[in-house]
């Protein structure tokens, strides 16, 4: 994703124009106490400050859900759309305005259920945008219904005897789509990893898909507990091309060298459920990017009118 470069010199010249993370907070987030969405918001604010993005040069697009309230809390242009349809809107925004940095925030119901068709195709379009899937394994806003990512056997208001099917794995699904160019997983309870992953996603040119495991103390308080308590159940994917945040090696014992260019290994790792894996599963910067392929040079109104006259000559009687 193209960022607006601001040299250090410029920053020193005009220190007052330097924005800090809190400058990117528009309103106080209204999520429940302890909600993992706060962590995601904090990481995003840090990223925006680090990149010194101008509020008017960003668009945050979301669907409907607890997580989709996100744009209201960011000091940027935002489009809080309809359930499941954030990706088509974001695609339209980016096609119209390649100069904007586009971010998409979706919930697991939003992205992997009602919006699943768009998700597959947006992955294939590989339009340049940073995509956050806030996956709490449940429908939060509508109060506790089973989502495609709910673990098998987990009870909810719509599955009082427990979810009957194996959970859908968003990483495997995304990695299976042709032209997928960036697939990563991180967790709200590892802020350093979350931030570094978002940074890598932002730096990648293309559809950068980040699944963020997000705690919902309200409805799925226990789905991630084991992992939160015991870091040994987590394996970090590391590589010079991957996510590298300071201090993580002290927290996590299990580390695996994984070259994000290796799609076969990425798929195999996504499929294995022995440990929770965080990091960049796959990254390829050489794939076609939709907004670049479809870019056409602007034409002046005068020129358009001249061309139209020629067009009409074809139909002249």
């Amino acid at each position, binding site marked *: 994703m193209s960022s607006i470069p601001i040299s250090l010199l410029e920053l020193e010249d005009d220190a007052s124009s330097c924005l800090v993370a809190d400058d990117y907070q528009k309103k106080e987030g209204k999520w429940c106490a302890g909600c993992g969405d706060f962590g995601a918001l904090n990481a995003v604010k840090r990223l925006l400050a680090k990149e010194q993005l101008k509020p008017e040069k960003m668009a945050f697009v979301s669907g409907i859900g607890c997580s989709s309230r996100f744009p209201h809390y960011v000091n*940027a242009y935002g489009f809080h759309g309809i359930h499941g*349809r954030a990706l088509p809107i974001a695609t339209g925004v980016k096609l119209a305005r390649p100069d904007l940095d586009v971010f998409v925030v979706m919930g697991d119901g939003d992205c992997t259920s009602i919006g699943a068709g768009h998700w597959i195709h947006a992955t294939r379009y590989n339009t340049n945008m940073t995509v956050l899937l806030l996956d709490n394994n449940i429908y939060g806003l509508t109060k506790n219904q089973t989502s495609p990512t709910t673990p098998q056997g987990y009870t909810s208001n719509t599955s009082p005897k427990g979810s009957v099917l194996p959970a859908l794995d968003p990483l495997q699904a995304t990695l299976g789509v042709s032209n997928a160019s960036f697939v990563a997983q991180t967790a709200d309870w590892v802020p350093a990893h979350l931030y570094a992953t978002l940074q890598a996603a932002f730096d990648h040119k293309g559809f950068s898909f980040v699944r963020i495991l997000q705690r919902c103390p309200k409805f799925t308080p226990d789905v991630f507990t084991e992992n939160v308590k015991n870091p040994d159940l987590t394996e970090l994917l590391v590589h010079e091309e991957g996510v590298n945040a300071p201090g993580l090696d002290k927290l996590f014992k299990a580390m695996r060298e994984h070259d994000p260019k290796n799609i076969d290994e990425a798929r195999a790792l996504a499929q294995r459920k022995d440990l929770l894996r965080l990091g960049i599963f796959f990254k390829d910067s050489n794939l076609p990017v939709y907004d670049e392929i479809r870019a056409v040079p602007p034409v002046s109104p005068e020129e358009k009118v001249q061309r139209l006259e020629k067009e009409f000559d074809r139909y002249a009687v």
Partner: protein
Amino acid sequence: MNKSTTIDAAVHAVREHTVEIITNSGEGAQKCAQIFGQTCAKMGNGVWTVEIIPAEIEPPHHTVTSTSGNIIRFGTEKITNWGDQSKLAIAFNDQVCLSRHRLNSFDDNCIILQESAWAESEDEVIRKMYAEAMEEMSSKNYRFIQVPIEEETLKVVDNPQHGKNMFALGLLAEIYNRDLAIIEKQIAHIFQKKSAKVTELNVQLVKNGMQWARDNLDFRFNVETIPAEEKRVVMNGNQAAALGAVAAGMEMCSMYPITPATSVSHELAAIIENYGGIVHQAEDEIAAAGVALGASYGGKVALTVTSGPGMALKTEFLGLAIMTEIPLVVLDVQRGGPSTGLPTKVEQSDLLSSIYGQHGDAPRVVIAPRSIEECFHSMVTARRIAETFRCVVIVLTDANLATGVQQFTRPEFDIRWQQEPVDFSPVPEGLRPYDWDPETGLSRRIIPGTPGGAHTVTGLAHDELSNVSYEPESNERGCKMRSRKLAVFQSTLMPPDVTGDQEGDLLVVGWGSTQGAIEEAVDRARKEGHKVSTCQLTFMSPLEPGLKEIFSRFKKVMTVEINYSDTVGDPYITEETRRYGQLAWLLRAHTLVDIDCWTSCPGQPLRPNDIYNSIIAKSEKGASK
């Protein structure tokens, strides 16, 4: 080749004629009709052509379902619709001919030039089918003329499939005394990408057809031509809408293929990139609406194109566009419904769903072009309205306009149509994202990239700051402001024209594409002394002003629509249970006038004669009351 001497032919002078070319699909009827229609137009006739399209891509040949072809109606004056039954037909086999007979497409005295090969076919089954078809068609007074189309074509080319159409064109050229030089030019143009030999052979076939007609046909028709003084173009409604979109400065057409709308995007896909825009083929109609909406939010002029089933899918997004006040133009080329319905055929049944199809109160503008020319101009109008009023504008055309071909005055382009829609000047301190003018509901559109304007639009109820708000007054205010814009827009409209006397016994009200057929029928009834007038609506939401007053000047008001309505007297159907045509429902609710309707939904454009009969029936009923 010239086996006999030219025979004497009687020349019949007529004001207009309707011709059909009917073939198996893939036998080139379209090319033949296209050249013939163009030639008529260039010579100064009014022309309307319609395609006859089979439901399948390549149905089995020589069957009643394989019929593909064209109807060409042309006349000395302007032609505004496909008219009544055909007076002359060229049929490549008895089965396609039979299918048209069954649809009642031929005039009782139709002259039918039919391929002669089938009567004496070696195949017994074909001979039998032929005999049965001829028997069935003998109920009418058709004049069959057997023409060795295939045999004659084989004298010039090896594969008659690629050539019979041009021989047929030659027959027509001679019968109607068309200018061969114009035909030759058309052929050269159509085959410009092929070798010169192809053009040469095709021209030879036309000449042979003309010669055969001179040698064998004892009749000619003379449709007087009056060369046009103004510059004209000829095209179908989808081409006109596509060019209208480009002329309106639209730079994003987001769509998903659906008949009969798809050819709009074909046309656009071929040219729009020369105008700085793109066609985005989305994964479905929902996404198509979303991409268009996102692009419009980003400041591009955006369009989404679809037909009924696609409209149903876009429903939720249109509500979002209305709620967030993001301009969006939707072109709905209507087809028969509900469900998959009649994919290739005409109906006007998206009227009410276009106006009322969203949950919640969702005011939007709906306009309906009445002619192919208006298909072009309505795109320009739609953009203007959408941006001025920050609203959704639905343009309702239909399969009749989409595939009908007609000539019209060449438009003069206005450079202002191409203007950038966006104003990036910094947002003044204090200006809110929905700073509704309390009188008009209008507010400045703030586009991403505009300094000082960062805010989040939402489909949730919101206040002027675009903050989510569930306050009772806030929701009422939002509803009021979005609705007010429609009233303001309506205040800029004029009452519709009444064609005919301004008062009388019966007013026939139509909308959109039926204008030509209705006016022709009413004109005929008036010439016979009936006190009937007509009024064709083009703004459907909001409706044009003054309707109630206009209706009050007539004893009876009746809508004519390509829609379903119940008939009183059918089982269970009474004045109370009767469901009216969609336009009648709308106008009854709007004016409280007891409006009747005459509707028909055969999947075909209305015929002036059928409308005429309904007018006479209504007038007589009125008189006896």
